[in-house]
């Protein structure tokens, strides 16, 4: 279909202009806060506090970043979150694949029962308190495990993955392998997994972002500050306004100023790992969301 062949009437032309303007406004609305945060993080703290910054940094300085990188609490949070993210995502991936594959097999007796058991949990759950009591009773309270086990599987992701296996890997191929005497395990490891890299990438993104941004489980299950994930440290600094370790050498006023622009730097630093991950899996994840929209 060639666009140029058709005569575009003036009404449509106006319509196009309006659309392009709306798109530009939307881009500006989404980007402005992000650019502002980056600019403020590189600016002289006094300009930040006086509200001199509109778009570009003023009085360029790395001071705020230097302070963020010297903060022991932030480093500790970073380290913990990294552990929770890597370990948690590994557990997520392992269990989600293990359940999604059998459920994708149309020749599995009892498939509908299993699917019902897991899908039901999307609509009805025990709620916060019984879950909290369970985790406590299992002795996971105040341990790393409380950050990775209670959320080891997301049902939505199981359904996305199952749909991928059903729609993207030809059943005839699997059937042929089985007829040739291939065991289900061998089929899974030798045929299915190598063909599933796109969906595995999507799952890594979904789960890893979830772990990286998780704060609520930490809030209710962790008491030991040494185990705090980054988001809990951020919560203390950004929301409860508790600036971390105080540097006695700097004057009090300068200290308060720096704490302000440090908040911007900390936002940038904490969001960068996820944003870096994004381009690598970006081509896959849109597909992942789309597969998730397939009914069933």
């Amino acid at each position, binding site marked *: 279909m060639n666009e140029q062949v058709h005569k575009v009437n003036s009404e449509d032309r106006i319509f196009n202009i309006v659309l392009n303007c709306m798109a530009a406004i939307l881009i500006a609305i989404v980007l402005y806060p992000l650019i502002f945060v980056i600019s403020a993080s590189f600016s002289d703290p006094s300009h930040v506090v006086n509200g001199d910054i509109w778009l570009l940094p003023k009085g360029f300085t790395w001071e705020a970043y230097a302070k963020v990188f010297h903060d022991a609490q932030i480093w500790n949070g970073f380290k913990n979150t990294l552990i929770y993210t890597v370990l948690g995502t590994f557990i997520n991936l392992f269990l989600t694949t293990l359940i999604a*594959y059998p459920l994708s097999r149309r020749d599995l007796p009892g498939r509908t029962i299993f699917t019902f058991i897991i899908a039901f949990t999307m609509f009805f759950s025990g709620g916060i308190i019984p879950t909290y009591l369970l985790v406590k009773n299992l002795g996971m309270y105040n341990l790393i495990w409380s950050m990775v086990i209670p959320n080891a*599987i997301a049902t939505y992701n199981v359904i996305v993955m199952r749909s991928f296996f059903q729609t993207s890997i030809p059943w005839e191929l699997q059937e042929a392998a089985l007829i040739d005497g291939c065991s289900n395990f061998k089929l899974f490891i030798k045929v299915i997994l190598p063909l599933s890299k796109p969906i595995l990438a999507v799952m890594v993104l979904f789960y890893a972002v979830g772990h990286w941004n998780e704060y609520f489980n930490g809030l209710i299950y962790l008491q030991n500050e040494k185990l705090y994930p980054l988001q809990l440290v951020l919560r203390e600094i950004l929301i409860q306004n508790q600036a971390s370790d105080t540097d006695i050498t700097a004057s009090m006023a300068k200290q308060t100023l720096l704490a302000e622009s440090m908040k911007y730097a900390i936002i940038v630093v904490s969001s960068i790992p996820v944003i870096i991950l994004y381009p690598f899996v970006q081509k896959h994840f849109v597909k992942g969301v789309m597969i998730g929209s397939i009914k069933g």
Partner: protein
Amino acid sequence: MSLKPESTKRIKEKVLPATKPKKKLWKNIVRRYDLYLMLILPMAWYIIFLYGPMYGLQIAFKDFIPIKGYWGSPWVGFENFQRFFSSYYFWRLIRNTVTIKVFSILFGFPIPILLALLVNELKNNKYKKVLQNITYIPHFISVVVIVGMLNLFLDPNTGVVNVILHSFGIKSIPFMQEAGWFKPLFIGSNIWTNMGWQSIIYIAALSGVSPELYEAARVDGASKLQRIWHVSIPSIMPTVIILLILEVGHFMDIGFEKILLMQNQLNMSSSDVIATFTYRTGILDGEYSYTTAIGLFDAIINFILLIVINQIARKKTSTSLW
């Protein structure tokens, strides 16, 4: 093998249906034992971590004392529920929960659809990609950071928003501390965070619409707006309905993790919702039975709404979850 035994076997199957399929089913199960092995670990997780708490819901009807355990604690019937319904907080919590959700659906639900329609109409592919990729970014930012950004931007003294208001001669507004601003800020920032990501599904649905439909409408003299109204929107209607059902089915869950972060003593009257109350009273104050009852009340309302809206959708539009 000759055909004869095969055909007699088939006849036998017809004559003795009671035993034969059972045997076959058993054979099918045994042949796929390794698939069941794979299922053991994840299913055990589901039973323990998702069905376990459902079993724990019984304490809503008990006076749960941790040392005595689930079994030892005495039954109290509906006492916990009655206490909640007659509590001072009850109407405030219900009002906040319901208004936040209703306004979220009213404003937040259509915007991703409009964004998808916009993306679909843009003819310049590069521009389209830029718009899409930029609107996805906020989805990856944590709630803590989003609320932190709100605090920074809306700070009465140093926040950029109030600095702008100042330059217009308007007195600064302590947005985060005023109850009246809580809901608009919560819903508005949610839209900012989620619109791009939520539009993906609609964009996918729109890309599946046959170009011939648009072509036919164009030949019939339909303007662009008419083509959107009569071709695009009807084509994504099933997707819209499914997502609306899911949204309503989670009516009482309203992203309370973010509300919890935005909450402070000053905006409590409009920010306190059932889930944040449950967190405070249950986890912080240890009133387990009482808050479990509140949670159960929440879950039951969700479930009823889900069934009702699914039924309505099935009758009116023939699209439904089941």
